[in-house]
């Protein structure tokens, strides 16, 4: 059973387009993180959101945590070829600040020139 459902699984777009990736769950999380992973490497943390309704911006990337802390979204504006990679969301159980992360299956993003 996958605790976090990510959609879409694959996304192929042209440079300059906008896109949104979704991460949904029926469980409440104390925090939710977004990672980006490139081939042959481990995931690298992009952002952590902890407050329901929180919005964080990282240049062209906008992250939102749902009001109920069960879901999150990642929006990329004017995608670039360098944004290509596997985007993973991961949550930490409610009340927990240590221990395991629960990962979604990831969204493989390909941006074409």
């Amino acid at each position, binding site marked *: 059973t996958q605790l*976090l459902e990510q959609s879409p699984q694959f996304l192929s777009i042209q440079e300059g387009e906008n896109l949104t990736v979704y991460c949904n769950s029926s469980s409440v999380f104390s925090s939710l*993180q977004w990672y980006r992973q490139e081939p042959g490497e481990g*995931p*690298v943390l992009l952002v*952590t959101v902890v407050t329901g309704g929180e919005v964080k911006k990282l240049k062209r990337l906008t992250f939102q945590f749902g009001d109920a802390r069960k879901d999150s979204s990642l929006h990329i504006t004017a995608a670039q070829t360098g944004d290509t990679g596997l985007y993973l969301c991961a949550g930490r159980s409610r009340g927990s*600040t*240590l*221990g*395991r992360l629960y*990962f979604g299956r990831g969204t493989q993003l390909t941006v074409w020139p």
Partner: protein
Amino acid sequence: GAGVSQSPSNKVTEKGKDVELRCDPISGHTALYWYRQSLGQGLEFLIYFQGNSAPDKSGLPSDRFSAERTGGSVSTLTIQRTQQEDSAVYLCASSLGPSGPISSYNEQFFGPGTRLTVL
């Protein structure tokens, strides 16, 4: 300083053999995690160490899997009598642990992984 390192980077073995995978965490990180990533899947949690003890080993898929950590640093994941379904990338991560600042949210830093192929 250096990041999380893992060895070997690739391991090809025959079904039924034992394998050992090694993880060197970031110096000073007391928490260490093992995850497994199969093709098309997200990261599957295996085990979490705090210091040398493992408060959460709930993700180990069978008793063929074991892990230890000595001196609060290096960790070894051992898979006995490997099966083809064990083929995956095994990722290790470390974090500051309970002594880290709240603002870090105990960020996990990942190594590059060991790609295990069981023939």
